[in-house]
Each structure stands twice: as structure tokens, then as C-alpha cells.
């Protein structure tokens, strides 16, 4: 557990400027939404939802390139020369990009709660939305990480888009199939006083699939040559 946390902390440190920018963006967006809350409820919510989608994109981009960057820079060699398993290394990267997603979603959620209060909604109504957003982002990021164990970043992004797109298409019929879109849709379709129905079953599936994808990625990564000879 400790190596994974160390790698996660290092991942955050390595991406600190992107994370800081993302946090500022999240906070500024929330403030922007709050500023428009007085004139139009729909505009404020639309603005918040738009920023929410970015969480998924950022997480996928971070996850898709993490392994590739470490291998290309050869920094992975010094890390994996230590007494850590490959699954711990992947867990570290997962905790890393998940933390970015959580930080962004929380920043957006914090300012979103303020916006909600300005709109006359309960600020706590934002909590399930943040949970759905975080899970959708982490699941999408884990799909990207899975593909990145055996593909270049470009193909990783293509395959991740294809996998998530396919699951979005079939999501209505098979809710357990990579439900990132289902979770994100619940955020995007949020409407005030709608009764707050959330896809909790899909959320549970998402947690399970995150674990399954991590195990599958670990099995593949453990068999992968991480260094090709520089000779």
C-alpha cells in the first residue's frame, strides 16, 4: 500500500502544474456559474455540467500517457528496480489520476454547492453528482490505463474512446458495461426538483469494474518488457 501511495504522491507532484491549473479552472468555473445564477438557473447549471465533462477528459488524458511517459523517460527503471510489484506501480498511477479527478470534482462541487444555494436548492444535492462524476472519471481513466499497458498513447485514446463509446451505445440494454457514460449522463441530466434519481447500481458496477480493470492491467503489465535495450 505504501509504495502505491508514494508513487501516487509522486504522480501528483510530477503533474502539479496541470493539477493546480485544473483546480483553479474548477473553482473559477464554479464562481462563473454562481455569477450567472442570478440571471438564469438553466445557464448556471449548463455551465457547471459543461465543466463536469472536462473531469472525464482530463483523467483519460492523464491516464493514457502516464505509463508511456515514464517508460520513454526511463524513470520507470529506477522505480521498478526497487522492491515493488508491478500491480503496486499501476495502483500508484491509478490513485494519482484518481486524486486529480477527486480534487477537480471537489473544487467544482464546492463552488457548485454555493451555486445551488444561490439557486434555492439544497447545497447537499451536489454530493451524489460529485460521486457520479468522480466514479465516471476514474472508470474512464482506468480503461485508458488498461489499454496503455500494451498500446501507445494515441491508440490508447482511440481504444478508450471506442470502448466508452460502445458502452454508451449499449448502456441502456447492458447497464453493467463500463457505465462511465451512464454515470456522466446522470450528472448531465440533473434538473432542479427532479427528485434526484441516480444510477447507484451502475455506480457499484463502476467500482467493481475499476478493480477488475486494475487486476487485468496488472496481469498484462507484469508480463510486459518495460525496457528495451538502449544498445
Amino acid at each position, binding site marked *: 500500500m505504501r509504495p502505491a501511495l508514494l508513487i501516487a504522491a509522486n504522480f501528483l507532484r510530477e503533474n502539479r502544474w496541470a493539477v493546480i491549473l485544473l483546480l483553479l479552472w474548477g473553482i473559477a468555473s464554479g464562481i462563473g456559474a454562481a455569477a450567472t445564477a442570478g440571471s438564469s438557473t438553466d445557464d448556471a447549471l449548463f455551465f457547471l455540467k459543461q465543466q463536469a465533462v472536462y473531469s472525464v477528459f482530463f483523467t483519460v488524458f492523464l491516464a493514457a500517457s502516464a505509463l508511456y511517459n515514464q517508460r520513454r523517460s526511463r524513470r520507470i527503471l529506477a522505480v521498478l*528496480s526497487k522492491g515493488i510489484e508491478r500491480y503496486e506501480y499501476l495502483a500508484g498511477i491509478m490513485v494519482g489520476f484518481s486524486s486529480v479527478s477527486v480534487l477537480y470534482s471537489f473544487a467544482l462541487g464546492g463552488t457548485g454547492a454555493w451555486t445551488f444555494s444561490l439557486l434555492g436548492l439544497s447545497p447537499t444535492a451536489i454530493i451524489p453528482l460529485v460521486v457520479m462524476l468522480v466514479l465516471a472519471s476514474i472508470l474512464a481513466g482506468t480503461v485508458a490505463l488498461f489499454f496503455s499497458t500494451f498500446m501507445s498513447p494515441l491508440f490508447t485514446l482511440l481504444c478508450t474512446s471506442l470502448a466508452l463509446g460502445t458502452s454508451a451505445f449499449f448502456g441502456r440494454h447492458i447497464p453493467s458495461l463500463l457505465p462511465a457514460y451512464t454515470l456522466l449522463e446522470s450528472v448531465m441530466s440533473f434538473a432542479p426538483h427532479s427528485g434526484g434519481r441516480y444510477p447507484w447500481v451502475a455506480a457499484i458496477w463502476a467500482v467493481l469494474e475499476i478493480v477488475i480493470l486494475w487486476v487485468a492491467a496488472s496481469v498484462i503489465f507484469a508480463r510486459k518488457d518495460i525496457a528495451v*535495450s538502449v544498445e
Partner: protein
Amino acid sequence: MAVLEFQQITKEYRTGFARRRVHALDDFSLSGGEGEILGFLGPNGAGKTTAIHLAMGFMRPSSGAGSMLGKPFGDAHTRKRVGFLAENVALYHRNVAPLVRFYGALNGLADTTLAKRTREVLELLDLVDVEKRNAAKLSRGMMQRVGLAQALVNDPDLLILDEPTSALDPIGRVAVRELLLRMKSAGKTIFLSSHLLSEIELICDRIAILHRGKLVRLGKTGELLESAEESEIVARGVDAQQFANAAAENGLVKLTVRVAEQRPTIERVWASGGEVVRVNPVRRSLEDIFSQLTKESEQ
């Protein structure tokens, strides 16, 4: 007990668009004993780095097997007792002391042990003055020392070093050489890959020479350097011109002869009233041996 053992390992790559097969290692076997410095020599592309990466578990052999400290290659728990420095060391861009602590923590060190070991290796490698500087802003030589620091922070039983002195200046090389000899006297085993033949010659107990993925020579350094084919006879009281391959120097005559001609030559020295001062096998430089072996295996 073999500390590091390669057993008939073959490693194949597929490269290029046509997925051409390349044998990085071909039926490679080698064993390193406890407390020795084993030098690993070979031209570019010989398979040295591949062998090291296999031992560290960075890649898997196409066939064959190997063990490190009694466990199969790739065992994470065993790596806690190993120090590794990669060729062209690449480390994270952060301050030197936290960076070394980070690698130590990855190896399971914590709290006071981690702080103590970090302090020790920073002092050992003369990095105390730069401990608060970002590693990215250090010279290549300094970076190499930081690389060595992260390899040593866990006080390893086995050190695997791929070109450890390639970026160091002569003073830094001497310092690393002394450090390795000190580690050897402390009972550590060192596996050292280098292009610097003089360095290998000076500190290694045994030398393994690789060429095109095959082990072409393995032996004790002294034995490798001494020729079994030629002797040097030093005599006095004889005329150098009476002998082929003779050179006069400070009143002595040095004769280089094939081993088969050693006895008749000594008898000729005695017959001409001379005196034999000493007879030694001809000592060749590692460079000569290296060139000869690589030429032989190319033929």
C-alpha cells in the same frame, strides 16, 4: 552460493516494420559469486544491458531462467536487497535529499532508518552540498552520483551497475572505484558493466566478455590478462642482436618468445654466457584481449 545466475538465457526481440528477429542474448549462462566484483564487458549491442534488465525483472527471457540472491529474476522482495543504477540514469526532477529518500522509501525504509541511510549516502557520495538542489539542475556527473546514491540507499547486498562512471570526471571515477572496493571489502557483490576497460581491469575479480549476445570469455582478471601463449624472458650479459624479438633496456635484454620456445631460448642465453633474471607470462592489456575476442567471434 551464486548471487546472480543466468542459466541458458535467450532473449529475442522483434524490431522494425517487418518484425525482424534480433537475438539480444543467445544461450547465455553466467554465475556471479558472493563478495566478488564481476566485470561485464562487450561492445555496443553485445547484450550487456539486456542481461542486466533481465536480472532486474524489467523484461522476461524468451527461454532459460535466472536467479538473483537465490530467487528467480523479477522477485520484488529480493529487489529490496539490490541496488541498481541504469545506464544514462533518469531520475525525477526534485531536490536531491527528498529524491534519495523517495527511492529509499520505495524499498521499504522508513522513519529514522531512512533518514540515517539518506544522510550516509549523501555524505559518502559527496552530495551534501547539493542536497537542496533540484536534480534536474545538476551536471551529468553529479546526476550520476545521485543515481548511485539511490542505488546504495537501501544498503544492498548486490549492486548492479550499468556504466556507473560513464559521466564522471577522472576524480569522480577514482572515488567511485574506491567506493566499490570498500563495498566489496564489506562483503557486497558487485556486477559492473562498463566500456572503460581500464576501470574493469583495476577493480574486477572476474571478467565476462560478451559479443553478439554470447559469452565469449570468462575468467579471473589476472588469468585473462596473462597470456598462455607467450613468455617474457629478461636476461643480462647477452647481446640483444643474437635473438629475434629482443629489446635492450638498462643493461637488460627482454625477449618475447612463444611458450614452446621458452626452454631453448633460456638454454641459448646460458650457452652464450648470459644470466636469466626472470621469466614471466606476457601480460596483455584488456583492450588487446577484447579486440582479439571480438574479431575472433566475428570470423
